């Protein structure tokens, strides 16, 4: 074990994947200079000529023009013909520039061509929400891609998962979109130094509990844990589940947890309508209705755009307070919300 940051763990996984298979290439904007710290040997170097460029050469570490549509499409074409690209799209909001390629080529080619194509390509992007970057850089677009059959959607919430899920993504013969939360970049924890793969479709029980299930996504996971700590002091035992991958989704883990606790709160930093939280809520309503002793509550970002001012932005995302409030709603032990602290926004 060694202490690694979320960002350092991504860099470690990329290094391992590049060393393990010569067909793996890293393609994206600013990957040569290690601008984001994931293409350096230690994960920290910011040398003009990044460590990866020296280690793996310019044939396998490729800076691109700012042309998302061809970056995504060309990496799809390369994946169909023998490479296993890891594509760094930097900001998640930039994925929209390549929507046609994602939806019409990446997701459909294997299916449309009757299984002739395989699409071993990983698209990494970072969600800069909560960092005062304004509306164009703060998106959490993973639910849009959950709506596109053929893609796998991954949302790591811890350094250990960021490493293990990325290794599994690179080994997948299907296209994988990984949405990384910048708010978690600095998070540190013990991470195994050796190589390991974290399976897709297997939720992580972050904390066990018996009164309520909190399914938390991305940066909402550490917030849900803090909420659970606070709730424990009030005698409420909350279980925190991190699905880790939204496609495939570990339905069994979520349903069986709700069957034990009888209550569900879903904390999801995406916009409320058609969010991952909405889908998880619908599944639980269909699969475990008779186990529910209270209505499901979603804690999401309300359906508004992301404002720049910290005074406006901070209140919007699920946090320990809004999650704890939601739990108290479903457990019937509502406490007054401390003044000045935002809860989940009104419908």
């Amino acid at each position: 074990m060694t202490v690694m940051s979320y960002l350092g763990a991504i860099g470690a996984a990329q290094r391992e994947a590049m060393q393990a298979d010569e067909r793996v290439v890293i393609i994206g904007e600013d990957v040569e200079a290690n601008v984001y710290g994931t293409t350096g040997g230690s994960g920290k170097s910011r040398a003009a000529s990044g460590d990866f460029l020296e280690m793996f050469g310019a044939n396998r570490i490729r800076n691109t023009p700012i042309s998302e549509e061809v970056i995504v499409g060309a990496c799809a074409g390369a994946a169909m013909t023998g490479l296993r690209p890891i594509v760094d799209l930097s900001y998640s909001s930039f994925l929209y520039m390549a929507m046609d390629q994602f939806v019409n080529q990446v997701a459909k080619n294997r299916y449309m061509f009757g299984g002739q194509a395989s699409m071993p390509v990983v698209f990494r992007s970072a969600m800069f929400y909560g960092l005062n970057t304004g509306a164009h850089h703060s998106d959490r677009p993973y639910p849009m891609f959950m709506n596109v059959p053929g893609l796998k959607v991954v949302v790591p919430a811890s350094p250990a998962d960021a490493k293990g899920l990325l290794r599994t993504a690179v080994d997948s013969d299907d296209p994988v979109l990984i949405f990384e939360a910048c708010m978690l970049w600095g998070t540190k924890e013990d991470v195994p130094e050796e190589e390991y793969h974290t399976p897709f479709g297997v939720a992580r029980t972050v904390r066990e509990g018996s009164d309520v299930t909190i399914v938390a996504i991305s940066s909402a996971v550490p917030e849900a844990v803090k909420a659970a700590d606070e709730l424990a002091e009030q005698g409420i035992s909350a279980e925190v589940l991190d699905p880790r991958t939204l496609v495939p989704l570990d339905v069994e883990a979520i349903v069986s947890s709700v069957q034990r606790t009888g209550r569900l709160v879903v904390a999801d930093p995406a916009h409320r309508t058609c969010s991952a939280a909405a889908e998880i809520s619908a599944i639980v309503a269909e699969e475990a209705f008779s186990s529910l002793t209270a209505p499901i509550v979603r804690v999401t970002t309300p359906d508004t755009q992301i404002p720049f001012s910290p005074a406006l932005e901070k209140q919007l995302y699920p946090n320990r307070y809004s999650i704890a409030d939601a739990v108290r709603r479903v457990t019937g032990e509502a406490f007054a919300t401390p003044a000045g602290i935002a809860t989940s926004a009104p419908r």
Partner: protein
Amino acid sequence: MDLSTETLLEMQRRMLRIRYFDERASKMVKRGHIPGTVHTSIGQEAQVVGACMALGDNDFMSGNHRSHGHPIGKGSPLGPLMAELVGKADGVCGGKGGSLHLADFNVGSLGESGIVGSSIPIATGAALSSKVLGNGKVALAFFGDGAANQGCLYESMNLAGAWGLPVVFLCENNQYALSTPAHTVTSGVIADRAAGFGMPGVRVEDGQDVLAVYEAVRAAVERARSGEGPSLVEVVTYRFNEHSEGLRLGVDYRDKDEKEAWLERDPIVIFRRWLAEHGHATEEQLDALDAEVRAEVDESVAFTDASPFPDPSRAFADLYTEPFGPTHAEHGPGPLIGAQK
């Protein structure tokens, strides 16, 4: 040109295969044998075959909605293609793609695309893998004059130029994007746009001449294979049929005289005459070739008729390489069976 008689006759054979396949497909659409519609390459056979024959068997190719000619030109067998148009289990894509999304990876056909321009980055990516893996393969992207105004073409040309990728951008300029004359929506000459990316741009004015197309594309393919990077080739041609079969627009967007002049320039008639005049085949031999291809198309229809429709459960196959996600059982048999005829 140093082409053997065998190669020259193969060109004619492939043009005939496209012609008779598409003529049959057109009839099958009108009779309801093929569901939906198809876009034929009738009239454009020289442009398609000249380009495909300039590629090697292992080279890659991507295409568009005018889709049958490309895999046929690359050497794909007709039976699975025809079965795909009808939606049969033995279709080249198992009935999942249909006319718009043919692909035959066995001949390097990486897929046709129903989205105009969308497959150009795919061919660019195939060239990228050739470059990284150093396997000497070349990729060719077919697209029309309509796609020539899509941004992804220019992103692809820029990336290919910057990275020196072995790709040929092949514009099939049949002069109309459905009903819209290309010259009314296109600024300048398409081939000239190559200069802005520092790559050769060639315009083949007579796209009805299969040898002219072949020569231009072969030069671009050789350039790509020798590591000199991408090229743009624009081929001026004409589609003889309507944009899609069965389409009745009620407007004459093509000038009558223009259309008649182009119909006179049938690439198959022109090349047949050339083959006979240059002593590559007798009229009898050319008649026999014609009959062979007609029989091959008949066989493709027989192959199609003998193939069953796919089991409804196949709607859930091939989405991922490993089994997860929706299954037939989960969705229940009710609505699916109800939708079957």
